C-alpha cells in the first residue's frame, strides 16, 4: 500500500519537474562562426518560428510556395540541388544560386539567415518534432475543421 503511494508520489514529482525546463530565448546570441555552433538554430522553436515569419516576409513563398515549390524547387522533399545540411541551406540563402535564387547576404543578418535555414529544414521534418511548427501562423482561407459541414460516413470504402 505504502509502495503504491510512493510510486504515485514519485510520478507526481516527475510530472512537476517536467515543467521546470523552459526553452530559453536568447535574444542576442551574436553571429555563430560555424555550422557546429549554428546547430542550435534548428533545435530552438523560437528560432524556427522566426524563420517561418521571415520566410513569409521575404516572399520566399513567391517561388518555393509553402515548401511544395513552383518557380523554384520544392523544399519539403529530400532532393537538394545544393545540399540539404543547415550550413548548405544557409550558404544558398546567403550567396544565392544560379537561375533565380537571389543572394540575401547583404539584406538579412546572419542570424536571420540561420533562422530561415532552420525553418526550411523543418519543412521536410529534418528537425526534432517538438521544435517544428505544428500549424501555420498565417490566416487560413478555409474554415476550421470543427466548423465545416458534417460529412456522412462512407460505407464500403476500399
Amino acid at each position, binding site marked *: 500500500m505504502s509502495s503504491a503511494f510512493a510510486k504515485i508520489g514519485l510520478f507526481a514529482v516527475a510530472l512537476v519537474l517536467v515543467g521546470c525546463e523552459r526553452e530559453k*530565448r536568447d535574444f*542576442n546570441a551574436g*553571429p555563430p562562426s560555424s555550422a557546429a555552433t549554428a546547430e542550435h538554430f534548428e533545435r530552438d522553436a523560437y528560432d524556427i518560428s522566426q524563420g517561418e515569419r521571415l520566410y513569409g516576409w521575404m516572399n520566399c513563398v513567391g517561388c518555393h510556395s509553402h515548401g511544395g515549390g513552383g518557380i523554384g524547387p520544392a523544399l519539403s522533399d529530400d532532393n537538394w540541388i545544393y545540399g540539404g545540411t543547415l550550413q548548405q541551406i544557409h550558404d544558398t540563402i546567403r550567396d544565392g544560386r544560379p537561375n533565380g535564387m537571389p543572394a540575401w547576404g547583404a*539584406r*538579412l*543578418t546572419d*542570424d536571420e539567415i540561420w533562422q530561415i535555414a532552420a525553418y526550411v529544414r523543418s519543412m521536410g521534418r529534418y528537425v526534432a518534432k517538438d521544435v517544428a511548427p505544428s500549424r501555420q*501562423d498565417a*490566416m487560413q482561407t478555409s474554415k476550421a475543421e470543427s466548423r465545416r459541414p458534417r460529412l456522412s460516413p462512407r460505407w464500403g470504402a476500399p
Partner: protein
Amino acid sequence: MNARRFAQQIALAAAPALLAGCVDSQSVLNPQSGEAHDLARLFWIFTTVCSLVWVLVVAALLTLLLRRRRPDSTPETDNLEQQSRKTAVVAGLVALTAVILVLFTLGSFYTTRGLIAPGPHPLLIKVTGAQWWWQVEYEDSDPTQVFSTANEIHIPVGRPVTFDLEATDVIHSFWAPNLMGKQDLIPGHRNSLTLTADKPGEYRGQCAEFCGLQHSHMAFLVVAQTPAEFWAWRQAQLKPAAPPASGQQALGQHLFVEGSCATCHTISGAGAGGKTGPDLTHFGSRSTIAAGLMANTPSNLAAWIKDPQELKPGVNMPQVPLSDHDRGAIVAYLEALK
C-alpha cells in the same frame, strides 16, 4: 499622536501613487473629444449616483445600529399601522433602486449608441497593429493623397476621424483614453472607431490588449491640430524623403538603401521599399522611437540601432553589425528626414 503620524505617512506615501493616475495626456478623466466627453459624463453620473446611494445606505444602517431599541418592539408587537408603514418603506426603496438601474441602462444604451453613429465625411485613417508598433495609413480616394507613417497619428480638430483598425499577427487594442474608449484590432477583421477632437493637443495612446513580450512598449501619440496645421503636416508627409544634405548623410542613405535596413523599412524617394517595418520617410519629424519607447534623439537612435534587443527584447528588428562610423552616418541621415 503616534497613530496620527502614521496616518499622515500613509497619506503621503499614497498621494504620489494616486496622482500618478492623473497624467493629463493619457486619462479618461480629461476628455478632449465629443465622444470622450459623453463617456466621461456617463462615468461621473454613475459614480455620483452610486456614491450617494452608498453613503445613504451606510448612514441609515449606522443610525439604526446605534439607535437604542425599544425593549417591547418586535414584529409581533407592531400594530397594523406600523407594519404597513414598514412595508411601504421597503417597497419604496426597491422601486427607487429599480428606477435608478433602469435610468442607468437607458443612459448607457443611448450614450454608447451615439458613439457609433457615423459622422459626415470623416477623415479615413487605417491603423494596423503589429508586434509591437502601429502602422498608420491616411486613406483617400485620390491615390496621390495616400501616405503611410507609424506610431504618430495627426488629426484635425473639429472634423470626425474614422480609424479603420486591423492587425497582422495577434489581437491588439487601440486606446487613446482622452479621445475614445478601447477598440480591438483583430487579424482578418476590420473594426472601426470614429471620434472628433475638440481642441489641439498631444494625447498618448497604448495597446490595451496583451499582445506579447513588448505589449507595454506599444504606445502611440495622437496629435490634434488646427485644420491649417494639419493640412500643412499632411502636405509635408506626402513629399518624398529629403535628399541627403551632407557627405555623411549621403553615406547614411547609401548604407540604408544597399544594406539590410531597406529590407524592412521604406524611405520613399530614396529607393528603400521594405514593408514589414515602420515607414521611415519622415522619421525625423516624429517625436518617439520604437512605438513610444524613447524620445527621438540622435543618441537614442544610435543606441537603438546598435542593439534593439537590449532595449526592447523580442522585437523583430535585428541587431545589424555596423561600425560606429557607419551607424553615425545612418543616424545623421534618418534624423534629417523631417
